[in-house]
């Protein structure tokens, strides 16, 4: 392990040196940064309250940041508690938008927008809004928002699809341009968006709310400048970024020097299943620096599952933060001691016009998994289990009996699922991907908005990667569709475990998707069971399944391609089942506290059989009929745990 002692740590600076570096004392710097964190959270709260769009209201699909002026290289100093795929990209996207438009062309009251994935990452639905803050005629800061717009044109309503083959099919691309000029709307820009969006009427009030939140953010920034002075304010922005950089530098230094390789696989694109895609990373760690080389990664996909280099860079920052020090504030400084080496034209560094990015978080998420796979073996107890890997995004539409159309978007697939375990404890079992950070739409909202009944939303048994700390359980979701429907399903990570194990823990098993057609055209009168024998009656959508029983079979099964039907047409009474991947386990499963295994059997995270097989714990009793009467056989457990086991945990 190497250490670097050439730089003085911020906390070791004398008061005079601190003031010389940041134009304020250390307490003022901390107070200003915390007040700015309040500002972005205040903006977020207000936007969430005012939003009309369900993707904002129910998913929290937006983020707010504050960045410095051009002379501070636009460094992103403060971020809201929201999507990392937005926050990470906004560090560069704001700078790129302002530089291209020209900072000298901006005036007080302007709002600059841009949604081009090649300029700033993400996909075209995620519109960036940048508002300069002026003091005495010069730009001193920017307040920024990025928010998902429900539709930005293109060939697929809403945009969520793996089938689009170029930027020309993907949706409207907006270069940096003014949406408001001096707080007056720029009609031509509004028309550009609304003339290309299917849901302009829904976007308009959310655009107005965005302006209000940017004005609020500007006001709060000004209040800080008036209270503490401009130089102290700018110093605090520097201090915030320097703190991140220093903490990341020290975290990197704690990793042994070496070259570490990892990979993750994406099942297929939206064209056919003749190609899978591999994201590869080689992490070269020397001293307090890391170079992440994506060489060896597959060329960009033929359809829009790609991500841009800014998304890859974000994934790198997320993975290193989670693995090396989750306490590091997420700012531009996160990447100061990290270099991304990115061959152009890969599935995570896509190039226009054919390398269209839409389902970008799926591929950038694969890079996170690859980094986990690369570093976990050398992190020991600090290793972290992987997550469920894919949002398994679901979209459906149809017509109600009264003739009114309905749509359901990103609610009834496997959008939420588990995280992996850590040295601190078991993995969470129902959350969002590492590179997201969203709310979960309420079941009542889902059932109100579409003719669907959510029958199950539960933790699936024996799906958390086994470990001294268990990975989060996969989510099993059954939805009953009350009208005929056209369903689009996008699970991307069913071949290769995304929930990688950590510190000797097992990987979480992979999931799948099935459709259960109605029997005799009738609505079902009972829940679909969860035993393997129920799947013979299903139409498999995705996953590695036994071709005869259609149940999961990771060892000998056959991959079923999610787009073998471009659109899955279902009749009223059909049940869609989505099972996510499981989270990775941490530590040797045979060292798991027996009482925790017993509690898992009682709570049906683990079956009686799974307790013996995966944990070496012999449980006696019936968890269904007498859960409180469960006990374990001490002698049989000791014998089982003493037996040699096949395979060596990673």
């Amino acid at each position: 392990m190497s250490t670097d002692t050439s730089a003085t740590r911020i906390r070791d600076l004398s008061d005079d040196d601190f003031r010389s570096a940041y134009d304020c004392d250390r307490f003022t710097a901390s107070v200003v940064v915390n007040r700015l964190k309040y500002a972005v959270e205040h903006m977020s709260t207000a936007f969430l309250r005012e939003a009309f769009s369900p993707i904002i209201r129910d998913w929290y699909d937006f983020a707010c940041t504050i960045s410095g002026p051009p002379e501070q290289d636009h460094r992103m100093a403060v971020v809201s508690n929201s999507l990392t795929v937005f926050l990470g990209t906004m560090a560069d996207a704001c700078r790129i938008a302002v530089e291209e438009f020209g900072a000298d062309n901006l005036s007080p009251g302007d709002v600059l927008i841009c949604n081009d994935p090649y300029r700033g990452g993400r996909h075209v639905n995620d519109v960036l809004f940048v508002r300069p803050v002026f003091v005495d005629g010069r730009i001193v800061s920017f307040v920024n928002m990025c928010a998902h717009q429900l539709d930005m044109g293109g060939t697929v309503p809403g945009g969520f699809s793996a089938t689009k083959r170029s930027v020309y099919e993907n949706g409207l691309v907006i270069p940096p341009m003014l949406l408001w000029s001096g707080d007056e709307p720029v009609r031509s820009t509004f028309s550009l968006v609304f003339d290309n969006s299917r849901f302009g009427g829904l976007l308009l009030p959310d655009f107005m709310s965005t302006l209000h939140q940017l004005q609020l953010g500007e006001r709060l920034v000004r209040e800080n400048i008036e209270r503490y002075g401009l130089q102290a304010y700018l110093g605090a922005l520097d201090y915030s970024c320097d703190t991140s950089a220093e903490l990341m530098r020290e975290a990197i230094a704690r990793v042994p020097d070496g070259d570490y390789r990892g990979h993750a696989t994406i099942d297929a694109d939206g064209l056919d299943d003749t190609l899978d895609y591999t994201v590869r990373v080689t992490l070269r760690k020397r001293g307090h620096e890391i170079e992440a080389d994506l060489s060896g990664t597959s060329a960009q996909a033929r359809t829009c599952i790609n991500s841009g280099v800014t998304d890859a860079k974000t994934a790198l920052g997320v993975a290193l933060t989670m693995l090396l020090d989750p306490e590091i504030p997420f700012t531009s400084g996160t990447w100061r001691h990290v270099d991304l080496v990115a061959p152009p034209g890969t599935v995570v560094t896509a190039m226009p016009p054919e390398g269209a990015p839409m389902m970008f978080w799926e591929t950038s998420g694969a890079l996170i998994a690859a980094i986990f796979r690369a570093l976990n073996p050398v992190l020991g107890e600090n290793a972290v289990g992987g997550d469920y890997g894919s949002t398994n995004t679901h979209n459906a539409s149809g017509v109600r009996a009264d003739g009114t159309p309905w749509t359901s978007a990103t609610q009834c697939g496997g959008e939420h699922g588990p995280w992996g375990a850590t040295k601190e404890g078991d993995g969470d079992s129902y959350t969002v991907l590492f590179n997201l950070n969203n709310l979960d739409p309420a079941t009542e909202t889902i059932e109100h908005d579409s003719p669907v009944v959510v029958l199950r939303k539960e933790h699936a048994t024996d799906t958390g990667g086994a470990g001294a700390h268990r990975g989060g359980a996969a989510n099993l979701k059954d939805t009953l569709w009350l009208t005929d429907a056209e369903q689009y399903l996008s699970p991307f990570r069913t071949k290769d475990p995304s929930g990688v194990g950590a510190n000797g823990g097992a990987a979480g098993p992979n999931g799948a998707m099935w459709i259960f057609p109605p029997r005799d055209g009738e609505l079902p009168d009972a829940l679909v069971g969860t035993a393997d024998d129920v799947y013979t009656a299903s139409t498999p959508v995705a996953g590695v399944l036994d071709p005869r029983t259609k149940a999961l079979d990771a060892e000998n099964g056959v991959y079923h391609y999610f787009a073998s039907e471009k659109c899955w047409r279902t009749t009223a009474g059909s049940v869609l089942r989505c099972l996510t991947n499981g989270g990775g386990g941490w530590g040797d499963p045979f060292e798991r506290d027996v009482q925790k295994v017993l509690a898992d059997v009682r709570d049906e995270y683990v079956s009686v059989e799974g307790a013996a097989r995966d944990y070496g714990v012999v449980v006696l009793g019936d968890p269904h009929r007498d859960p409180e009467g469960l006990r374990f056989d001490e002698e049989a457990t000791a014998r089982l745990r003493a037996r040699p086991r096949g395979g060596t945990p990673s």
Partner: protein
Amino acid sequence: MSSDTRSDTRDGTDPADRPLFLEREPVDGSCPRCGAADLRRYPVNSEGGWFDVVKCQACLHSVRREPGPRLGPIQLLSDLL
């Protein structure tokens, strides 16, 4: 449920894999930090965006580090205006 023991054995030789690599141009000289005679020039993306760097391949020291094109390998037709 199996242990996660898979190593990274795929080598990119599968034609369906179509891997891409970034070339690193050799540069004469040795590293002022570690002395290794293995300097290479290539683009990287870090805090602040793209940089054209000359780095030591042994210790990763940046011998030269200059801001690169704003969008890296992507060129805008409007830049010709």
